[in-house]
């Protein structure tokens, strides 16, 4: 079989996830515009060079009463008029699905330069209304209808399942929260950079840190976030030309070395029933991670220098730790206690702050993770740079462990 054509990540731009675009009195199109224009400027790419665009978004129809988001890309610059665009949706994994589609088109030789935009504006509605909208990422009628904040409850049950199979202590979840908030303090674009947090607060069981679903408390949750992230993906031919123009070796431009993608059954109960006799609680997530390694030619987690994972709740990060093979199944707590997940630890997870610390604009998250991975392996992650990183992996999850996508990005 011929070698798969390479897909390069030229760079990109993230909006500040602390921003509230409703308070700034800005329309959805401003969010798109800032994300894309920022990436054009950052990567020094002329608009007429862009051949195609893919937009990842979960629910603009609900949050912003706006569909047909691919077309909004053409509003960013007159030169984009006529550029083929599309929109992709897979709940919180929407951004990664857009990346998969764009990279597949590069691999197929259709286009040489693609824009991928992940975008979500969520602060347009109340917390309860937003929580209900997010419920459409589950089987709404069966799992979310009439339930206040359905997702914290679903991921609370993920914790309960770990507890049942292996035992789970809240102090380990609190430590995961603490690390994500602390890393976010290093990230100028993180939503929680100024929020009050330490392990004691995360363990606090009073009104200061209320329960929102089973064992999930506010400190265990990712955030309601407005944000857009745009990255440029390129073929080898374009990347060579682009690198030459900047006086950079092609070997210094990161590539998408491997990917994994699985979709499990929609209902949480069905997933758990399927994995009843298995070591991994969410085996399809494990499969996504290992297939990304296989395609990247990596044996295991020691082949990557850090991870940007989907910590929509502390329980999802707790699950990711053993699914990445950092510990044996059920022993994620050992990595927490050993300090391996810290930014300067053996297996840094979410140096950006992740979804808990940096924020979670649903459709943008997968693209944000890919951009952070690319920044890490090129030494451009600023204060949250993992020293000497050459390979980084992402894990982006839609629904209650339903759609999983993982990328290995490296030099």
């Amino acid at each position, binding site marked *: 079989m011929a070698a798969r054509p390479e897909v390069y990540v030229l760079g990109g731009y993230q*909006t500040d996830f602390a921003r509230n675009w409703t308070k700034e009195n800005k329309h959805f199109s401003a969010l798109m515009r800032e994300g894309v224009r920022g990436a054009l400027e950052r990567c020094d790419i002329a608009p007429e060079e862009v051949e195609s665009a893919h937009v990842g978004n979960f629910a603009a129809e609900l949050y912003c009463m706006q569909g047909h988001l691919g077309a909004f890309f053409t509003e960013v610059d007159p030169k984009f008029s006529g550029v083929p665009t599309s929109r992709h949706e897979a709940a919180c994994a929407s951004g990664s699905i857009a990346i998969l589609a764009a990279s597949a088109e590069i691999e197929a030789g259709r286009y040489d330069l693609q824009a991928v935009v992940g975008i979500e504006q969520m602060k347009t509605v109340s917390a309860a209304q937003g929580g209900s909208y997010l419920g459409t990422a589950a089987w709404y009628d069966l799992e979310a209808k009439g339930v206040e904040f359905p997702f914290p409850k679903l991921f609370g049950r993920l914790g309960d399942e770990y507890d049942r199979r292996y035992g789970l202590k809240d102090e380990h979840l609190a430590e995961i929260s603490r690390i994500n908030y602390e890393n976010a303090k290093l990230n100028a674009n993180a939503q929680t950079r100024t929020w009050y947090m330490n392990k004691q607060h995360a363990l606090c069981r*009073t009104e200061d840190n209320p329960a929102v679903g089973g064992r999930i408390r506010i400190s265990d949750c990712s955030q309601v976030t407005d944000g857009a992230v745009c990255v440029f993906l390129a073929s080898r031919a374009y990347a060579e030309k682009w690198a030459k123009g900047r006086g950079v070796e092609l070997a210094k431009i990161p590539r998408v070395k491997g990917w994994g993608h699985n979709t499990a059954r929609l209902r949480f109960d069905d997933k758990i029933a399927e994995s009843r006799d298995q070591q991994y609680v969410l085996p399809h997530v494990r499969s996504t991670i290992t297939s990304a390694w296989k395609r990247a030619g990596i044996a295991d987690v020691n082949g990557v220098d850090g991870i940007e994972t989907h910590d929509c709740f502390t329980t999802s990060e707790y699950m990711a730790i053993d699914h990445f093979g950092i510990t044996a199944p059920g022993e994620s707590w050992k990595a927490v206690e050993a300090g391996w997940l810290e930014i300067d630890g053996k297996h840094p997870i979410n140096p950006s702050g992740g979804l808990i610390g940096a924020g979670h604009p649903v459709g943008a998250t997968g693209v944000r993770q890919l951009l952070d991975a690319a920044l890490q392996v090129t030494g451009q992650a*600023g204060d*949250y740079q993992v020293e000497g990183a050459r390979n980084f992996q992402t894990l982006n999850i839609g629904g209650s462990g339903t759609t999983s996508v993982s990328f290995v990005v490296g030099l």
Partner: protein
Amino acid sequence: MSSTPAQMRRLAGSRPLQHVVVLGANGTMGYGAAALFTQAIPRVTFLARSREKAQEGLQAAIKQVRSETVGNRADVGSYEELDAKLATADLVFEALTEDFALKKQMFDRVEKSRRADSIVATVTSGLSINELAEGRGDSFRRHFLGLHLFNPPNVIVGTELIGGRETDPAVLDFIEAFSRVRLGREIVRTHDAPAFAGNRVGFKVLNEVAQLAEQIGPVLADRLVGPYTGRAMTPLATIDLVGWDIHRAIVDNVYEKTQDEAHATLKLPDYMAKAMQRGVLGNKSGAGFFKKEGKTSLALDPASGDYRPVAEIKLPKLGYIDRVAALHNVGRYAEGMQAFLAAEEPEAEIARRVIAGYISYAFHRVGEVTDAITGIDLIMATGFNWAPPSVLVDTMGARASVELIERAGLPVPQALRDAARGAARPFFHHPQLNVGKFFVAN
């Protein structure tokens, strides 16, 4: 400070910082800073004139960050206990009232009680670090610095770090690393100049708008220099929030200690001094430029000192602000600012003069308050939440910025003249800072 991020993280943990004593912990900045410290420092001592006052500070800190866990790391005391408390302190953080003599007296006591290796920081918003250190022993002077947080520190990350002539550079590097890594601060190093960088530039603009209010009223003044010009909060609402007494302390200090090209704009308006005699101090006294009576918003009439319902104050037609805001609304900031520059309404000229003054004044302070414009840019962005001067120049264009300043009859900074002649190159470089957020569509 030049080091890799990993080196900076190691530096942040290179020196024990287990105990901080906050002096003046019942004041707004004292308890705000103390709350911030409890996230990263195991023991935080709240000290005030009395134990009761310190306890009030602790309660205010808990309320500010909404976490009772602040109390787990805190202890309280009065200045009578200074000796005992300072015996274990790695950092002494002074947050007394902005009174030079008072601070000096406190440092007399601190110097007697502090450990020789403890760091002493003052949060002064503009008093001279060198003058505060004058007459102290070697150890004190080597360990003394200014760490100017902006209020409230749990919201605003911009922080100025000021060394004195004899401050140990290693101490400054450590405090910078610790503040960035553990406290999430955006650190700007400034010179020991009156009001440092942020307040020098920011309060010049605020005071100029307060002067304007005397002629056109506070409602119109705030509308003209409103969010669409590159800020989250309007200028006079900002003075009300900060407190008129603080505003006065800052502008009086700068007016007295400096003689720059915009000296007159730093003179506190007489109507403000008179209103302060009646107890007007902004939000903390319930009345400033604006106040609320029930659901009615009222605005000060500078001439009479009376308040009038905002709804009854007639403003001229300001269609240009709607045009600018409509462009900002869809993210077309450069076009929005072009519409501002081109607006023919006479009121637009008033607003343009203030913006021209801001840019001109900021660029003329390079060398005096910071080494480069980047420091002023960063503190205006992260301390004031205003579009930094360089961002305005980049957004409007260097040539248009020069014309704007010339038309206002203000001195044009040489750097802008050079930029206007050459090819367009952005002044503002910060790989992580969004500039669009400053152009609010109101």
